[in-house]
Protein backbone atom coordinates (compact mmCIF):
# COMPACT_ATOMS: atom_id res chain seq x y z
CA UNK A 1 0.00 0.00 0.00
CA UNK A 2 1.21 3.52 -0.79
CA UNK A 3 2.57 5.70 1.98
CA UNK A 4 0.48 8.60 3.25
CA UNK A 5 1.55 11.70 5.16
CA UNK A 6 -0.19 11.86 8.54
CA UNK A 7 0.04 13.98 11.67
CA UNK A 8 0.78 11.84 14.72
CA UNK A 9 -2.35 12.57 16.73
CA UNK A 10 -4.67 12.12 13.75
CA UNK A 11 -2.91 8.94 12.66
CA UNK A 12 -3.33 7.49 16.14
CA UNK A 13 -7.04 8.32 16.10
CA UNK A 14 -7.47 6.74 12.66
CA UNK A 15 -5.48 3.68 13.79
CA UNK A 16 -7.88 3.22 16.69
CA UNK A 17 -10.86 3.34 14.35
CA UNK A 18 -9.22 0.76 12.10
CA UNK A 19 -8.56 -1.41 15.19
CA UNK A 20 -12.29 -1.57 15.86
CA UNK A 21 -12.50 1.04 18.60
CA UNK A 22 -16.22 1.24 19.49
CA UNK A 23 -16.12 4.43 21.50
CA UNK A 24 -13.87 7.34 22.37
CA UNK A 25 -14.24 9.57 25.42
CA UNK A 26 -12.06 12.66 25.43
CA UNK A 27 -11.33 15.97 27.04
CA UNK A 28 -9.28 18.84 25.61
CA UNK A 29 -5.65 19.21 26.64
CA UNK A 30 -2.60 20.20 24.59
CA UNK A 31 -0.72 18.55 22.86
CA UNK A 32 -3.26 15.78 22.12
CA UNK A 33 -6.27 17.82 20.93
CA UNK A 34 -6.23 16.48 17.36
CA UNK A 35 -7.16 13.03 18.70
CA UNK A 36 -10.57 13.99 20.15
CA UNK A 37 -11.09 16.43 17.27
CA UNK A 38 -10.52 13.69 14.71
CA UNK A 39 -12.67 11.26 16.67
CA UNK A 40 -15.54 13.74 16.99
CA UNK A 41 -15.82 13.85 13.20
CA UNK A 42 -14.93 10.31 12.20
CA UNK A 43 -16.39 8.06 14.92
CA UNK A 44 -20.02 9.01 14.13
CA UNK A 45 -19.30 8.46 10.43
CA UNK A 46 -18.42 4.87 11.30
CA UNK A 47 -21.51 4.51 13.50
CA UNK A 48 -19.28 4.66 16.59
CA UNK A 49 -19.52 6.71 19.75
CA UNK A 50 -17.71 9.94 20.56
CA UNK A 51 -18.40 11.85 23.77
CA UNK A 52 -16.57 14.94 24.98
CA UNK A 53 -16.62 14.34 28.72
CA UNK A 54 -16.83 17.02 31.40
CA UNK A 55 -13.38 16.11 32.72
CA UNK A 56 -10.60 13.57 32.34
CA UNK A 57 -12.04 11.85 35.40
CA UNK A 58 -15.40 11.44 33.69
CA UNK A 59 -13.78 10.40 30.39
CA UNK A 60 -11.87 7.49 31.94
CA UNK A 61 -14.99 6.41 33.82
CA UNK A 62 -16.95 6.42 30.56
CA UNK A 63 -14.20 4.17 29.22
CA UNK A 64 -14.66 1.99 32.31
CA UNK A 65 -18.41 1.73 31.64
CA UNK A 66 -18.09 0.95 27.95
CA UNK A 67 -15.33 -1.58 28.63
CA UNK A 68 -17.53 -3.19 31.31
CA UNK A 69 -20.17 -3.58 28.60
CA UNK A 70 -17.62 -5.44 26.45
CA UNK A 71 -16.82 -2.60 24.06
CA UNK A 72 -13.43 -1.53 22.70
CA UNK A 73 -12.98 1.78 24.48
CA UNK A 74 -10.29 4.44 24.32
CA UNK A 75 -9.38 7.80 25.77
CA UNK A 76 -6.44 10.11 25.25
CA UNK A 77 -4.91 12.92 27.22
CA UNK A 78 -1.63 14.51 28.20
CA UNK A 79 0.28 14.38 31.46
CA UNK A 80 -1.85 16.47 33.89
CA UNK A 81 -4.96 14.88 32.41
CA UNK A 82 -3.46 11.40 32.68
CA UNK A 83 -2.89 12.10 36.38
CA UNK A 84 -6.62 12.72 36.72
CA UNK A 85 -7.37 9.46 34.94
CA UNK A 86 -5.34 7.39 37.40
CA UNK A 87 -8.36 6.74 39.62
CA UNK A 88 -10.22 5.21 36.71
CA UNK A 89 -7.18 3.30 35.42
CA UNK A 90 -6.79 1.65 38.83
CA UNK A 91 -10.47 0.63 38.78
CA UNK A 92 -10.13 -0.67 35.21
CA UNK A 93 -7.13 -2.78 36.23
CA UNK A 94 -8.88 -3.92 39.40
CA UNK A 95 -12.06 -4.91 37.58
CA UNK A 96 -9.93 -6.54 34.84
CA UNK A 97 -11.27 -4.55 31.93
CA UNK A 98 -9.58 -3.91 28.59
CA UNK A 99 -8.99 -0.29 27.65
CA UNK A 100 -6.56 1.78 25.60
CA UNK A 101 -5.20 5.06 26.96
CA UNK A 102 -2.99 7.47 25.02
CA UNK A 103 -0.61 9.81 26.85
CA UNK A 104 0.89 12.51 24.63
CA UNK A 105 3.06 13.50 27.53
CA UNK A 106 4.28 17.00 28.27
CA UNK A 107 6.59 18.60 30.80
CA UNK A 108 5.56 18.82 34.44
CA UNK A 109 5.17 18.82 37.35
CA UNK A 110 1.79 20.46 37.72
CA UNK A 111 0.70 22.43 34.69
CA UNK A 112 4.33 22.44 33.50
CA UNK A 113 4.64 23.07 29.79
CA UNK A 114 2.96 21.85 26.63
CA UNK A 115 6.32 20.80 25.14
CA UNK A 116 7.28 17.14 24.79
CA UNK A 117 8.58 15.28 27.83
CA UNK A 118 9.20 11.79 29.16
CA UNK A 119 8.64 12.65 32.80
CA UNK A 120 5.64 10.31 33.18
CA UNK A 121 7.74 7.13 33.03
CA UNK A 122 7.36 6.34 36.73
CA UNK A 123 3.63 7.04 36.69
CA UNK A 124 3.16 4.91 33.58
CA UNK A 125 5.24 1.89 34.52
CA UNK A 126 4.61 1.69 38.29
CA UNK A 127 0.83 1.60 38.14
CA UNK A 128 0.07 5.29 38.58
CA UNK A 129 -3.02 4.88 40.73
CA UNK A 130 -3.62 3.08 44.02
CA UNK A 131 -3.01 -0.61 44.52
CA UNK A 132 -0.77 -3.35 43.15
CA UNK A 133 -1.42 -3.13 39.45
CA UNK A 134 0.40 -2.26 36.25
CA UNK A 135 -0.64 -1.03 32.86
CA UNK A 136 1.06 -2.46 29.82
CA UNK A 137 3.08 0.47 28.41
CA UNK A 138 3.97 0.77 24.73
CA UNK A 139 6.33 3.54 23.64
CA UNK A 140 6.42 4.45 19.93
CA UNK A 141 9.28 6.41 18.39
CA UNK A 142 7.59 7.26 15.08
CA UNK A 143 4.14 7.83 13.66
CA UNK A 144 4.32 4.46 11.87
CA UNK A 145 5.16 2.68 15.09
CA UNK A 146 2.47 4.61 16.98
CA UNK A 147 -0.12 3.53 14.42
CA UNK A 148 0.99 -0.11 14.64
CA UNK A 149 1.12 -0.11 18.44
CA UNK A 150 -2.32 1.49 18.84
CA UNK A 151 -3.81 -1.31 16.79
CA UNK A 152 -1.89 -3.93 18.78
CA UNK A 153 -2.95 -2.25 22.02
CA UNK A 154 -6.62 -3.14 21.56
CA UNK A 155 -5.77 -6.81 21.07
CA UNK A 156 -3.36 -6.82 24.02
CA UNK A 157 -5.94 -5.13 26.25
CA UNK A 158 -8.52 -7.75 25.32
CA UNK A 159 -6.03 -10.60 25.68
CA UNK A 160 -5.03 -9.63 29.21
CA UNK A 161 -8.19 -7.79 30.31
CA UNK A 162 -5.91 -4.99 31.40
CA UNK A 163 -5.44 -1.33 30.45
CA UNK A 164 -2.78 -0.67 27.81
CA UNK A 165 -1.10 2.72 27.80
CA UNK A 166 0.54 4.23 24.74
CA UNK A 167 3.23 6.50 26.17
CA UNK A 168 4.21 8.97 23.47
CA UNK A 169 4.99 12.65 23.76
CA UNK A 170 4.01 15.95 22.23
CA UNK A 171 6.64 15.50 19.52
CA UNK A 172 5.07 12.27 18.25
CA UNK A 173 1.61 13.83 18.48
CA UNK A 174 2.44 17.00 16.59
CA UNK A 175 4.86 15.94 13.84
CA UNK A 176 3.92 14.57 10.41
CA UNK A 177 5.49 11.49 8.84
CA UNK A 178 4.75 9.13 5.98
CA UNK A 179 3.03 5.97 7.14
CA UNK A 180 1.68 2.82 5.63
CA UNK A 181 -1.62 1.23 6.68
CA UNK A 182 -0.72 -2.42 7.00
CA UNK A 183 -2.98 -5.41 6.59
CA UNK A 184 -3.26 -6.83 10.07
CA UNK A 185 -3.73 -10.48 10.93
CA UNK A 186 -6.87 -11.21 12.90
CA UNK A 187 -6.07 -12.36 16.41
CA UNK A 188 -8.07 -14.95 18.31
CA UNK A 189 -9.21 -13.40 21.57
CA UNK A 190 -11.09 -14.78 24.56
CA UNK A 191 -14.88 -14.18 24.60
CA UNK A 192 -16.11 -11.35 26.81
CA UNK A 193 -18.51 -13.54 28.76
CA UNK A 194 -17.83 -11.47 31.89
CA UNK A 195 -19.29 -8.27 30.43
CA UNK A 196 -22.36 -6.49 31.84
CA UNK A 197 -24.43 -6.61 28.68
CA UNK A 198 -27.75 -7.60 30.20
CA UNK A 199 -28.32 -11.22 31.22
CA UNK A 200 -30.28 -12.24 28.10
CA UNK A 201 -31.09 -15.63 29.60
CA UNK A 202 -27.78 -16.07 31.45
CA UNK A 203 -28.37 -17.93 34.71
CA UNK A 204 -26.55 -15.50 37.03
CA UNK A 205 -26.00 -11.77 36.72
CA UNK A 206 -22.55 -10.47 35.80
CA UNK A 207 -21.24 -7.96 38.35
CA UNK A 208 -18.18 -6.07 37.10
CA UNK A 209 -16.39 -4.72 40.16
CA UNK A 210 -12.99 -4.05 41.66
CA UNK A 211 -14.39 -4.51 45.18
CA UNK A 212 -13.04 -7.53 47.08
CA UNK A 213 -14.19 -6.73 50.59
CA UNK A 214 -12.77 -9.86 52.25
CA UNK A 215 -9.00 -9.59 52.63
CA UNK A 216 -8.18 -13.21 51.64
CA UNK A 217 -10.32 -12.79 48.52
CA UNK A 218 -8.61 -9.48 47.73
CA UNK A 219 -5.18 -11.07 48.15
CA UNK A 220 -6.11 -13.91 45.79
CA UNK A 221 -7.25 -11.33 43.27
CA UNK A 222 -3.93 -9.49 43.58
CA UNK A 223 -2.03 -12.73 43.06
CA UNK A 224 -4.15 -13.42 40.00
CA UNK A 225 -3.58 -10.05 38.36
CA UNK A 226 0.14 -10.30 39.15
CA UNK A 227 0.22 -13.59 37.26
CA UNK A 228 -1.02 -11.71 34.18
CA UNK A 229 1.94 -9.32 34.45
CA UNK A 230 4.30 -12.29 34.68
CA UNK A 231 2.71 -13.68 31.53
CA UNK A 232 3.12 -10.34 29.78
CA UNK A 233 6.84 -10.42 30.66
CA UNK A 234 7.09 -13.86 29.08
CA UNK A 235 5.05 -13.21 25.95
CA UNK A 236 4.97 -9.52 25.12
CA UNK A 237 8.47 -8.04 25.45
CA UNK A 238 9.36 -5.75 22.58
CA UNK A 239 12.59 -3.88 22.01
CA UNK A 240 14.97 -2.87 19.26
CA UNK A 241 18.75 -2.70 19.13
CA UNK A 242 20.94 -0.73 16.76
CA UNK A 243 24.69 -1.19 16.42
CA UNK A 244 24.77 -3.88 19.11
CA UNK A 245 25.09 -7.07 17.07
CA UNK A 246 28.50 -7.93 15.64
CA UNK A 247 29.73 -4.37 16.02
CA UNK A 248 31.30 -4.48 19.50
CA UNK A 249 30.01 -1.15 20.83
CA UNK A 250 31.95 0.50 23.64
CA UNK A 251 28.93 2.21 24.98
CA UNK A 252 25.20 1.48 24.97
CA UNK A 253 22.60 4.23 24.86
CA UNK A 254 19.32 3.06 26.40
CA UNK A 255 16.46 5.24 25.26
CA UNK A 256 12.82 5.07 24.20
CA UNK A 257 10.43 7.08 22.06
CA UNK A 258 11.53 10.47 20.79
CA UNK A 259 14.92 10.42 22.56
CA UNK A 260 15.75 7.07 20.96
CA UNK A 261 15.63 8.82 17.58
CA UNK A 262 18.03 11.46 18.83
CA UNK A 263 20.26 8.61 19.99
CA UNK A 264 20.33 7.12 16.46
CA UNK A 265 21.92 10.32 15.24
CA UNK A 266 24.15 10.50 18.32
CA UNK A 267 25.53 7.05 17.47
CA UNK A 268 26.64 8.33 14.06
CA UNK A 269 28.02 11.53 15.59
CA UNK A 270 30.04 9.50 18.14
CA UNK A 271 31.60 7.45 15.38
CA UNK A 272 32.41 10.41 13.13
CA UNK A 273 33.40 12.97 15.75
CA UNK A 274 35.04 10.77 18.37
CA UNK A 275 35.67 7.44 16.67
CA UNK A 276 33.57 5.76 19.38
CA UNK A 277 31.33 2.81 18.54
CA UNK A 278 28.00 3.09 20.31
CA UNK A 279 24.89 0.94 20.27
CA UNK A 280 21.25 1.71 21.05
CA UNK A 281 18.92 -0.38 23.18
CA UNK A 282 15.36 0.84 22.68
CA UNK A 283 12.65 -0.74 24.82
CA UNK A 284 9.25 -0.60 23.08
CA UNK A 285 7.40 -2.21 25.99
CA UNK A 286 8.29 -0.10 29.04
CA UNK A 287 6.14 -2.42 31.11
CA UNK A 288 7.00 -5.22 30.91
CA UNK A 289 10.60 -3.97 30.64
CA UNK A 290 13.11 -6.12 28.71
CA UNK A 291 15.48 -6.50 31.66
CA UNK A 292 17.25 -9.69 30.59
CA UNK A 293 17.75 -8.51 27.03
CA UNK A 294 19.41 -5.27 28.15
CA UNK A 295 21.47 -7.18 30.72
CA UNK A 296 22.87 -9.50 28.06
CA UNK A 297 23.96 -6.59 25.88
CA UNK A 298 25.47 -4.69 28.82
CA UNK A 299 27.39 -7.85 29.82
CA UNK A 300 29.24 -8.16 26.53
CA UNK A 301 33.01 -7.71 26.65
CA UNK A 302 34.00 -4.27 25.45
CA UNK A 303 30.93 -2.47 26.80
CA UNK A 304 32.33 0.24 29.05
CA UNK A 305 29.06 1.79 30.19
CA UNK A 306 25.34 2.13 29.61
CA UNK A 307 23.72 5.57 29.45
CA UNK A 308 20.01 6.09 29.92
CA UNK A 309 19.02 9.04 27.74
CA UNK A 310 15.67 10.58 28.59
CA UNK A 311 13.59 13.74 28.51
CA UNK A 312 13.34 13.66 32.30
CA UNK A 313 15.55 14.08 35.34
CA UNK A 314 16.18 10.33 35.40
CA UNK A 315 13.32 7.85 35.55
CA UNK A 316 13.89 4.94 33.16
CA UNK A 317 17.47 4.91 34.46
CA UNK A 318 16.11 3.02 37.50
CA UNK A 319 14.97 0.17 35.24
CA UNK A 320 18.22 0.36 33.28
CA UNK A 321 20.15 -0.11 36.55
CA UNK A 322 17.93 -3.03 37.52
CA UNK A 323 18.53 -4.57 34.10
CA UNK A 324 22.27 -4.00 33.93
CA UNK A 325 22.62 -5.08 37.57
CA UNK A 326 26.30 -4.33 37.89
CA UNK A 327 27.37 -5.72 34.52
CA UNK A 328 28.56 -2.24 33.51
CA UNK A 329 28.47 1.28 34.99
CA UNK A 330 25.16 3.04 34.34
CA UNK A 331 25.03 6.77 33.64
CA UNK A 332 22.20 9.14 32.97
CA UNK A 333 21.78 12.02 30.56
CA UNK A 334 18.56 13.94 30.32
CA UNK A 335 16.87 17.23 29.60
CA UNK A 336 13.68 18.04 31.43
CA UNK A 337 10.65 20.26 31.52
CA UNK A 338 9.93 20.18 27.80
CA UNK A 339 13.53 20.67 26.64
CA UNK A 340 14.78 18.19 24.08
CA UNK A 341 18.39 16.99 24.11
CA UNK A 342 20.39 17.74 20.99
CA UNK A 343 22.40 15.13 19.13
CA UNK A 344 25.64 16.90 20.11
CA UNK A 345 24.70 17.01 23.78
CA UNK A 346 24.08 13.26 23.83
CA UNK A 347 27.20 12.45 21.79
CA UNK A 348 29.44 14.75 23.86
CA UNK A 349 28.16 13.27 27.13
CA UNK A 350 28.65 9.72 25.87
CA UNK A 351 32.18 10.56 24.72
CA UNK A 352 33.00 12.02 28.13
CA UNK A 353 31.78 8.81 29.79
CA UNK A 354 33.97 6.68 27.52
CA UNK A 355 36.94 8.85 28.33
CA UNK A 356 36.18 8.40 32.02
CA UNK A 357 35.29 12.02 32.63
CA UNK A 358 31.72 11.62 33.83
CA UNK A 359 30.74 10.43 37.28
CA UNK A 360 28.64 7.35 37.61
Amino acid at each position, binding site marked *: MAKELWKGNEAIAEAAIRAGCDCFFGYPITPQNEIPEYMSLHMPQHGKVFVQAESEVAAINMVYGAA*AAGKRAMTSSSSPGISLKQEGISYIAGAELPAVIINMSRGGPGLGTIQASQADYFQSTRGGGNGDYRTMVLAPQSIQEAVDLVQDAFDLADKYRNPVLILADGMIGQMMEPIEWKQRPSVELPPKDWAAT*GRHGREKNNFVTSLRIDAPDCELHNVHIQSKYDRMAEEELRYETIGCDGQEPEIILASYGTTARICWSAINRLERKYGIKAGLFRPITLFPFPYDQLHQIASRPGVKAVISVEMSQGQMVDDVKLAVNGAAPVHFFGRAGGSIPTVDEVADFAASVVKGGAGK
Partner: protein
Amino acid sequence: MKPVYVKSKGLQDTELHYCPGCSHGIVHKLIAETLEELNIIDTSVLICPVGCGVFAGNYLACDAVEAAHGRAPAVATGIKRTCPDQPVFTYQGDGDLASIGIAEIVHAAMRGEKFTTIFINNGIYGMTGGQMAPTTLIGQKATTAPLGRQKELHGEPIRMCEMLSSLGGLVYAERVCVADVPHIIKAKRAIKKAFTKQLNNEGFTFVEVLAACPTNWAMTTRKANEWVLGPMAEYYPLGVIKEV
Protein backbone atom coordinates in the same frame (compact mmCIF):
# COMPACT_ATOMS: atom_id res chain seq x y z
CA MET B 1 -53.92 -21.56 47.45
CA LYS B 2 -53.04 -18.39 45.57
CA PRO B 3 -50.12 -16.45 47.06
CA VAL B 4 -50.99 -12.83 47.79
CA TYR B 5 -47.37 -11.70 47.95
CA VAL B 6 -44.20 -13.10 46.40
CA LYS B 7 -40.65 -11.80 46.35
CA SER B 8 -39.81 -10.10 43.06
CA LYS B 9 -37.75 -11.99 40.50
CA GLY B 10 -35.76 -8.76 40.24
CA LEU B 11 -34.05 -9.63 43.53
CA GLN B 12 -31.44 -12.33 44.01
CA ASP B 13 -32.03 -14.91 46.68
CA THR B 14 -29.60 -13.53 49.25
CA GLU B 15 -29.49 -11.68 52.55
CA LEU B 16 -29.09 -7.90 52.47
CA HIS B 17 -26.40 -6.36 54.69
CA TYR B 18 -28.34 -3.18 55.44
CA CYS B 19 -29.00 -2.04 59.01
CA PRO B 20 -32.43 -2.46 60.61
CA GLY B 21 -34.73 0.39 59.61
CA CYS B 22 -32.61 1.41 56.61
CA SER B 23 -34.55 2.44 53.51
CA HIS B 24 -32.23 0.77 50.99
CA GLY B 25 -34.02 -2.58 51.23
CA ILE B 26 -37.39 -1.06 50.42
CA VAL B 27 -36.00 0.90 47.46
CA HIS B 28 -34.25 -2.25 46.17
CA LYS B 29 -37.60 -4.01 46.30
CA LEU B 30 -39.35 -1.23 44.39
CA ILE B 31 -36.66 -1.26 41.69
CA ALA B 32 -36.82 -5.07 41.49
CA GLU B 33 -40.59 -5.00 41.05
CA THR B 34 -40.28 -2.30 38.40
CA LEU B 35 -37.70 -4.31 36.44
CA GLU B 36 -39.94 -7.36 36.64
CA GLU B 37 -43.15 -5.55 35.67
CA LEU B 38 -41.46 -3.83 32.71
CA ASN B 39 -39.84 -7.14 31.76
CA ILE B 40 -36.33 -5.69 31.75
CA ILE B 41 -34.50 -7.77 34.39
CA ASP B 42 -32.78 -9.61 31.57
CA THR B 43 -31.66 -6.50 29.67
CA SER B 44 -30.91 -3.89 32.33
CA VAL B 45 -27.54 -2.82 33.70
CA LEU B 46 -27.25 -1.30 37.18
CA ILE B 47 -24.36 1.01 38.12
CA CYS B 48 -23.62 0.75 41.84
CA PRO B 49 -22.19 3.61 43.90
CA VAL B 50 -19.54 3.72 46.57
CA GLY B 51 -21.28 3.75 49.93
CA CYS B 52 -23.87 1.47 51.45
CA GLY B 53 -25.27 0.66 47.99
CA VAL B 54 -21.91 -0.74 46.86
CA PHE B 55 -23.21 -4.33 47.07
CA ALA B 56 -26.45 -3.66 45.17
CA GLY B 57 -25.15 -5.80 42.32
CA ASN B 58 -25.26 -8.76 44.71
CA TYR B 59 -28.93 -8.05 45.51
CA LEU B 60 -30.63 -6.99 42.28
CA ALA B 61 -30.89 -9.68 39.64
CA CYS B 62 -29.80 -7.68 36.60
CA ASP B 63 -26.22 -7.24 35.36
CA ALA B 64 -24.26 -4.67 37.32
CA VAL B 65 -21.11 -2.56 37.29
CA GLU B 66 -19.49 -1.06 40.36
CA ALA B 67 -18.30 2.52 39.80
CA ALA B 68 -15.72 4.63 41.59
CA HIS B 69 -17.08 7.12 44.14
CA GLY B 70 -19.39 9.55 42.36
CA ARG B 71 -18.56 8.33 38.85
CA ALA B 72 -21.67 6.23 38.24
CA PRO B 73 -23.21 8.74 35.77
CA ALA B 74 -20.01 8.68 33.69
CA VAL B 75 -19.91 4.87 33.78
CA ALA B 76 -23.60 4.79 32.83
CA THR B 77 -22.89 7.18 29.95
CA GLY B 78 -20.21 4.82 28.64
CA ILE B 79 -22.65 1.90 28.74
CA LYS B 80 -25.80 3.63 27.49
CA ARG B 81 -24.04 5.38 24.59
CA THR B 82 -22.56 2.10 23.37
CA CYS B 83 -25.61 -0.03 24.22
CA PRO B 84 -28.53 2.33 23.52
CA ASP B 85 -31.12 -0.45 23.55
CA GLN B 86 -30.32 -1.53 27.11
CA PRO B 87 -32.04 -0.01 30.13
CA VAL B 88 -29.32 1.51 32.32
CA PHE B 89 -29.68 2.98 35.80
CA THR B 90 -27.45 4.32 38.53
CA TYR B 91 -28.15 3.89 42.22
CA GLN B 92 -26.34 6.55 44.23
CA GLY B 93 -26.25 7.99 47.71
CA ASP B 94 -25.92 11.65 48.65
CA GLY B 95 -22.18 11.64 49.38
CA ASP B 96 -21.61 9.85 46.09
CA LEU B 97 -23.95 11.93 43.93
CA ALA B 98 -24.21 15.35 45.58
CA SER B 99 -20.61 15.70 46.76
CA ILE B 100 -17.80 13.86 44.98
CA GLY B 101 -19.89 13.06 41.91
CA ILE B 102 -21.57 16.43 41.43
CA ALA B 103 -19.84 17.11 38.09
CA GLU B 104 -20.75 13.70 36.68
CA ILE B 105 -24.45 13.94 37.59
CA VAL B 106 -24.81 17.55 36.39
CA HIS B 107 -23.22 16.81 33.02
CA ALA B 108 -25.12 13.57 32.49
CA ALA B 109 -28.32 15.55 33.09
CA MET B 110 -27.10 18.38 30.84
CA ARG B 111 -26.38 15.94 28.00
CA GLY B 112 -29.76 14.33 28.53
CA GLU B 113 -28.24 10.88 28.89
CA LYS B 114 -31.02 8.37 28.48
CA PHE B 115 -30.57 6.52 31.74
CA THR B 116 -32.29 6.69 35.12
CA THR B 117 -30.74 7.74 38.41
CA ILE B 118 -32.18 6.60 41.73
CA PHE B 119 -30.78 9.03 44.30
CA ILE B 120 -30.87 7.90 47.92
CA ASN B 121 -30.80 11.02 50.10
CA ASN B 122 -30.43 10.24 53.80
CA GLY B 123 -28.50 13.39 54.61
CA ILE B 124 -25.44 11.54 55.88
CA TYR B 125 -22.46 9.38 54.85
CA GLY B 126 -23.68 5.96 55.91
CA MET B 127 -20.94 3.48 55.03
CA THR B 128 -18.10 5.55 56.49
CA GLY B 129 -19.92 6.21 59.75
CA GLY B 130 -22.15 9.28 59.82
CA GLN B 131 -20.06 12.14 58.43
CA MET B 132 -21.71 15.32 57.17
CA ALA B 133 -23.09 15.23 53.62
CA PRO B 134 -24.00 18.15 51.35
CA THR B 135 -27.60 17.18 52.16
CA THR B 136 -27.27 17.16 55.97
CA LEU B 137 -29.90 19.50 57.40
CA ILE B 138 -29.00 22.68 59.29
CA GLY B 139 -28.56 21.78 62.94
CA GLN B 140 -28.29 18.04 62.22
CA LYS B 141 -25.33 16.45 63.97
CA ALA B 142 -22.76 14.39 62.09
CA THR B 143 -19.42 12.87 63.11
CA THR B 144 -17.64 15.66 61.20
CA ALA B 145 -20.13 18.30 62.36
CA PRO B 146 -20.32 17.42 66.04
CA LEU B 147 -22.11 20.67 66.90
CA GLY B 148 -24.54 20.23 64.04
CA ARG B 149 -24.45 21.70 60.54
CA GLN B 150 -24.12 25.47 60.61
CA LYS B 151 -25.14 27.71 57.74
CA GLU B 152 -22.19 30.09 58.24
CA LEU B 153 -19.67 27.27 58.32
CA HIS B 154 -21.05 24.62 55.98
CA GLY B 155 -23.59 26.40 53.80
CA GLU B 156 -27.15 25.31 53.22
CA PRO B 157 -28.02 21.77 52.08
CA ILE B 158 -28.21 21.13 48.35
CA ARG B 159 -31.53 20.29 46.69
CA MET B 160 -30.51 18.03 43.81
CA CYS B 161 -33.92 17.64 42.13
CA GLU B 162 -34.39 21.40 41.87
CA MET B 163 -30.80 22.02 40.80
CA LEU B 164 -30.84 19.40 38.04
CA SER B 165 -34.30 20.46 36.88
CA SER B 166 -32.81 23.65 35.45
CA LEU B 167 -31.10 21.49 32.80
CA GLY B 168 -32.83 20.81 29.51
CA GLY B 169 -31.67 17.21 29.27
CA LEU B 170 -33.61 16.21 32.38
CA VAL B 171 -37.17 15.21 31.49
CA TYR B 172 -38.40 13.93 34.84
CA ALA B 173 -37.43 14.59 38.45
CA GLU B 174 -39.54 13.51 41.40
CA ARG B 175 -38.78 13.43 45.09
CA VAL B 176 -40.33 10.62 47.10
CA CYS B 177 -39.83 8.85 50.42
CA VAL B 178 -40.48 5.37 51.77
CA ALA B 179 -41.32 6.29 55.36
CA ASP B 180 -44.82 4.75 55.28
CA VAL B 181 -47.00 2.64 53.02
CA PRO B 182 -48.73 5.44 51.10
CA HIS B 183 -45.37 7.02 50.34
CA ILE B 184 -43.89 3.65 49.33
CA ILE B 185 -46.70 3.27 46.79
CA LYS B 186 -45.97 6.76 45.42
CA ALA B 187 -42.24 5.99 45.31
CA LYS B 188 -42.91 2.85 43.28
CA ARG B 189 -45.00 4.86 40.81
CA ALA B 190 -42.19 7.39 40.41
CA ILE B 191 -39.53 4.75 39.84
CA LYS B 192 -41.68 2.97 37.30
CA LYS B 193 -42.45 6.22 35.52
CA ALA B 194 -38.74 7.07 35.32
CA PHE B 195 -37.89 3.69 33.78
CA THR B 196 -40.84 3.94 31.40
CA LYS B 197 -39.65 7.33 30.19
CA GLN B 198 -36.18 5.88 29.72
CA LEU B 199 -37.62 3.02 27.65
CA ASN B 200 -39.39 5.69 25.56
CA ASN B 201 -36.00 7.37 25.01
CA GLU B 202 -37.26 10.66 26.42
CA GLY B 203 -34.12 11.81 28.24
CA PHE B 204 -32.52 11.80 31.67
CA THR B 205 -34.80 10.71 34.52
CA PHE B 206 -34.14 11.26 38.20
CA VAL B 207 -35.89 9.97 41.32
CA GLU B 208 -34.72 11.26 44.69
CA VAL B 209 -35.69 9.09 47.64
CA LEU B 210 -35.60 10.66 51.11
CA ALA B 211 -34.25 7.74 53.08
CA ALA B 212 -33.85 6.83 56.72
CA CYS B 213 -30.50 6.00 58.33
CA PRO B 214 -31.44 5.13 61.93
CA THR B 215 -27.93 3.88 62.71
CA ASN B 216 -26.07 7.07 61.84
CA TRP B 217 -28.87 9.35 62.93
CA ALA B 218 -28.87 7.57 66.34
CA MET B 219 -32.65 7.16 66.15
CA THR B 220 -35.12 4.34 66.40
CA THR B 221 -36.72 3.28 63.13
CA ARG B 222 -39.97 5.01 64.10
CA LYS B 223 -38.15 8.25 65.03
CA ALA B 224 -36.12 8.06 61.81
CA ASN B 225 -39.22 7.79 59.66
CA GLU B 226 -40.76 10.71 61.56
CA TRP B 227 -37.59 12.67 60.79
CA VAL B 228 -37.99 11.89 57.08
CA LEU B 229 -41.64 12.97 57.02
CA GLY B 230 -40.95 15.98 59.23
CA PRO B 231 -37.79 18.08 58.91
CA MET B 232 -36.46 16.35 55.79
CA ALA B 233 -39.66 16.58 53.76
CA GLU B 234 -40.04 20.18 54.92
CA TYR B 235 -36.66 21.18 53.46
CA TYR B 236 -36.84 18.73 50.52
CA PRO B 237 -40.45 19.00 49.26
CA LEU B 238 -41.96 15.73 48.04
CA GLY B 239 -43.59 15.41 44.63
CA VAL B 240 -42.85 15.95 40.96
CA ILE B 241 -40.24 18.68 40.63
CA LYS B 242 -40.08 18.58 36.84
CA GLU B 243 -41.85 16.64 34.14
CA VAL B 244 -41.56 17.40 30.46
